[in-house]
């Protein structure tokens, strides 16, 4: 259902604050990646709730649905709505020879790494990401704090293009 919804929401990221200017959204498909990952985490809890529900219902301790209904509602919220919001909080920019990655809402972090500070670059693809044709780009800096900055939700091609652009810079800076 959310492809159309995602496309609707995709154009400029709704500015969270002045911080979000000039950011590009990550691929809409990344919402599905989040959803699937969350689903895998949530599923055991739903199954557990189902078992508990059956037991209590059989013993007649509780109203039928007293456990399963709230759990299902919560799970639906987490799986259906939250990924869209989470996806919306991600933003990036590769302009001005800097990699900028913004993430999170409750604790929002906006990181900038100048290309020439990058030590090495990874392009990684997990099984879930591969399913949606996405990849994540990870850059390593010499800093000990923030030495690893990860930008998920790029298409494999985009990630490789960005990597090559950065690599050129690393080589140029190294003389």
């Amino acid at each position, binding site marked *: 259902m959310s492809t159309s919804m995602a496309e609707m929401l995709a154009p400029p990221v709704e500015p969270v604050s002045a911080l979000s200017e000039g950011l590009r959204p990550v691929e809409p498909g990344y919402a599905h990646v989040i959803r699937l990952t969350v689903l895998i985490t949530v599923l055991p809890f739903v199954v557990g709730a189902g078992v508990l529900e059956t037991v209590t219902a059989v013993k007649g301790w509780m109203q039928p649905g007293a456990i399963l209904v709230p759990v299902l509602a919560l799970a639906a919220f987490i799986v259906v709505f939250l990924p869209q919001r989470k996806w919306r909080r991600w933003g990036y920019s590769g302009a001005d020879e800097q990699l900028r990655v913004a993430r999170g*809402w409750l604790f929002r972090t906006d990181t900038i790494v100048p290309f020439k500070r990058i030590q090495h670059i990874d392009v990684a693809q997990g099984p879930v990401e591969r399913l949606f044709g996405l990849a994540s780009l990870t850059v390593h800096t010499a800093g000990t704090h923030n030495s690893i900055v990860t930008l998920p939700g790029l298409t494999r091609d985009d990630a490789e293009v960005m990597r090559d652009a950065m690599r050129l810079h690393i080589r140029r800076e190294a003389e």
Partner: protein
Amino acid sequence: MSDVSGMVASSVPTEPGTERRLHPLTLMLDLSRQLPQALIGLIALRLSGPDEIRSWVALIAFVAIVAMFGTTFWKWWRFSYRLDPQELRIASGIISRNVRSIPYERIQDVNLEQGLLSRMLGMAKVRLETGSSGSGDEGVLDSVDLAEAGRLRDVIRLRKAVQAGASDPQADAVPLPAEADTPPMFAMDTRRVLTAGVFNFSLVFFALIGALVNNLDFLLPGDIWDPRRLLDLLGLDDLFAALDIAARVLSVIAALFGLLVIGLIGGIIRTGLREHGFRLDRTETGFRRRRGLITLTDVVMPLHRIQAAVIATGPVRRRLGWFELKVQSLASDSEKDSDHSVAPLAHAEEVRAILNETGIRWDTDYPQMRSVDPAMWWVPLVFALPVPMVGIAVSATLANPWLALLYVLLPVVPLCSWLHWRAHRYALEGGQLYVRDGFWAQRLTLLPLRRVQSVDIKQSAVSRFIGLAEVEIGVAGRSTAVTVHAIPLQEAIALRTRLIAIS
């Protein structure tokens, strides 16, 4: 003791070097390290092991000792190093062999370390810093002859310079021997070391005694910590009962005073052990620091690897004009410490003289720096204070009304918070970021903008509501970020732009 110098740099050969082993006396050192543990184990076995084993202890001991000698010797025999034209090779391992090659150009520092025993035996531990993020154990030769250690250092420095294509490699390698005659950049006499010790008030003795008691618990009677039992044990029971309240107060004061004295002595001893004979020299490429009373360390810090400087002081030291200067370098001199102290206790002009060499300037200080939004101190309190307030109220009504007196202590929390806010200032000036933290342990970080690795702007839901943000700057060789707290978002964005623009 510092005969490390006085070696002559050898010329660059092209053929592979000869295999060398560590100093034979290393065997003794290794064994002396292992023996106490083994003995304790054997004694424990003799005293408390299963009955049928006890009579065999002598045989077990014999076998164990032979095995220990055997493996140690074998390890020593199989450990060798070789100075090849391009790299240092270290071969090790008894059964699974490991040959490690470290190209000279990757070696950042060559540090020498001498413990008490190795000093008496004329040996030194050579530690090669390669600047990788590992544990720093990439290349350790433990231990070689002192003369050999000096030769290693000179050869490695020379070949490193050749590999790096320096125009005049000789100039790079020779200064080590020569500089013993030149005056040091900074040195501390005994008086200065003792003064530094006074400011290093340390209760580490108590921690030590505590650890001892913890480990030797079984020797003490079980109820030793019961005050009555303790008094009884010391034969002070009657005496204490006879004392009136004033005397008790006095005795508490005396105890506190004792604590102070022990803390002072602890600090002086600790500092004296570490900083004795502190000497900082300017070499061709950087600094060289030698210090230590029992364990001598000899550390080389190339200037181009220095990322930032920290000037640390305290309220009292500042008043007396004392500062400590540390530099943050890519390679760390030990696992736990990423700052190299280059002047543990120095006057401002001495600090400036050393800083001049690094190209880092100290142009501004607290009075001229910008303070941050007061929200930094009161916002956390809004969340933190209600908990103890309610807690005290509940326990006072339920348990003991006297607990309400704890409210008197409560203002300490906002006071500390306020002092911290007041101490926190920043400035961006002359291509450097200055950040100052702490009202008790005052730290002024001097960060050249070209050393900025990454910049974060962080906002929590609360700070977004107030319109504030914090800026975190990643710096190499420093485990925590340099942070500017609680500044308006627009200011944070502007600061970030300026930080990145110059880098």
